């Protein structure tokens, strides 16, 4: 026996091209919508991942240091401000603080880098506190430095690839011409660590001719009042406090505007697709007026016809959105690349995270909106009077 579902399905197959075009419209709008939902979710996740992988939640640096990157680029490190390492001990005493690590960021001009030279950055870290703060760092080869004064480097995955260095190779600090031995290469982390060259803090201080530091990384205790800690740190003279939760909030605010705009475009795309659905179903209803009339003479109630037409709408929307969501999942990498090229700042890791829950959520939205768009054609079909429909040639 034939069911209403089969009748609806076969009705859609009658105009294959029209049905296909409508489904393509829904597919595209579902793809855009689920990708953007995925971006909304993935971007924050990736940012959190990046921040968590810093190992510390707060950085204290000498005033002016937020502009350090620009300073490094423009003046080859000569304009940097430094802090007294004794400050590390003061901060470590605070009850909210679990651990601290001193860091010295240094940049040297490398005439062999690029076409007209470039800056080579080094990250001086304390071997006794820095690795403990980042226990998740894994070595592809080698290990951390043998001592805090060793003439050694540990290279991030990408830094080693770029410099084409292996464990045991020597590398030269440009400008200072100090040879350092590569003792470890990290596994890929998907964070900024991948591009970093780590040197023991004291070694870098010696090379740079300073006993100061530029930054203190602070890991707070679990359940510590971070806001209170930040406020206390602000009281310290000549330092700048960078809280990663604030950084995250600032980035999310910046990205929020773009997200609202893109989401609006996606919703417009969904709206256009649904107008297409309504148009397709309405045309199909008008073309089948006589057929609907006959179904009514055969005993179909208004609600039967309503359900029949609504089922067609449901099939179009379900088919289109399932294909669209699957395509979005499959093309995740391409979407990621595309968004990355558009954004001024993108955290490492996947930017578009589409999971099963999100896929179901998008499917739900498309079905609800689709069913709403099918209401009018279904209602029109349901209220047709049999004789008038049959006569409507």
């Amino acid at each position: 026996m034939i069911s209403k579902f089969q009748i609806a399905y076969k009705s859609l197959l009658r105009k294959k091209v029209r049905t296909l075009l409508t489904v393509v419209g829904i597919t595209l709008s579902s793809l855009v919508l689920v990708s953007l939902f995925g971006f909304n979710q993935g971007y924050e996740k990736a940012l959190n991942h990046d921040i968590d992988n810093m190992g510390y939640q707060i950085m204290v640096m000498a005033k002016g240091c937020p502009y350090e990157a620009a300073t490094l680029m423009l003046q080859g490190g000569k304009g940097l401000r430094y802090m007294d390492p004794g400050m590390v001990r003061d901060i470590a005493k605070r009850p909210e603080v679990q651990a601290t690590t001193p860091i010295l960021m240094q940049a040297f001009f490398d005439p062999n880098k690029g076409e007209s030279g470039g800056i080579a950055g080094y990250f001086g870290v304390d071997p006794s506190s820095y690795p403990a703060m980042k226990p998740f760092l894994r070595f592809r080869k080698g290990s951390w430095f043998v001592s805090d004064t060793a003439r050694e480097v540990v290279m991030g995955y990408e830094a080693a690839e770029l410099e084409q260095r292996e464990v045991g190779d020597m590398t030269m600090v440009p400008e200072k011409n100090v040879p350092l031995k590569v003792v470890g290469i990290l596994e890929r982390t998907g964070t900024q660590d991948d591009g970093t060259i780590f040197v023991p803090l004291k070694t870098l201080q010696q090379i740079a001719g300073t006993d100061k530091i530029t930054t203190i990384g602070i890991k707070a205790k679990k359940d510590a009042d971070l806001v209170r800690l930040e406020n206390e740190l602000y009281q310290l003279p000549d330092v700048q406090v960078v809280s990663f939760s604030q950084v995250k909030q600032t980035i999310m605010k910046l990205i929020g505007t773009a997200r609202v705009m893109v989401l609006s475009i996606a919703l417009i795309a969904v709206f256009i697709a649904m107008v297409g659905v309504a148009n397709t179903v309405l045309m199909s209803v008008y073309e089948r007026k006589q057929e609907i009339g006959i179904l009514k003479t055969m005993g179909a109630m208004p609600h039967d016809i309503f359900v029949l037409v609504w089922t067609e709408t449901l099939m179009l929307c379900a088919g289109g959105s399932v294909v669209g969501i699957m395509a979005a999942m499959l093309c995740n990498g391409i979407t990621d690349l595309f968004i990355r090229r558009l954004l001024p700042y993108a955290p490492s890791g996947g930017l578009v995270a589409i999971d099963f829950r999100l896929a179901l959520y998008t499917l739900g939205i498309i079905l609800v909106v689709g069913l709403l768009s099918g209401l009018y054609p279904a209602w029109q079909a349901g209220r047709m009077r049999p004789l008038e429909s049959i006569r409507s040639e």
Partner: protein
Amino acid sequence: MADTDITLDARGLSRAYRRGSEEILALDGVTLSIKRGEFVSFMGPSGSGKTTLVNLLGCLDNPSAGELHLAGKKIFGEGKRLSERELTVVRREVFGYIFQNFYLVPSLTVRENVAVPLAFYRKPGAEAEVDRLLKLLGIEHRANHLPREISGGEMQRVAIARALVNRPEILLADEPTGNLDSRRSTEIGEVLQELNRSSGLTIVMVTHDPGLAKLGGRHIEMRDGRAYEG
């Protein structure tokens, strides 16, 4: 509705249409009764009101005046007018319809077309009727064909099977051979006659074909919206 009571009883049925400011009286106070098992054919020139009358008898339209009783139950009349939903209930219980243009669903096979009414309403045991009717009407071998793959005569046979699948008491046929050549017309006429004879199906038919009209045991001539027993 008890089978033995099925009778169509029209009393002073009129139907007027409005075209702009002009009112056209398509049916002018027709009174007639149709008993169970009768094969009644209506003939007459175009615009004589025969299709209008059959549509009213088949509860497809509302009269402007007059009464219609079905098995003693008033369907239309003074102070009585059924809603579209109530009319649908009457239609699916009592009537089967065939039309000049067959109106088969082009995307469904012959078997599916015959079974379509069952998707909306199913009398007990009606499923078995599909195969029985396909066989009875000689279209069993076309069961899996689409309407575009069969002849006009076969299409009308499919339409007849579809009309009968829920075992109606009365079959209303509006120009059932209007789109067929004479040979196919005769075949369809014979099919209807056989259905009437073998199963006692009441048939009310509108036709322009005098040969087909003669097949019915009772002949009614329509002129200017009035009915004259032939």
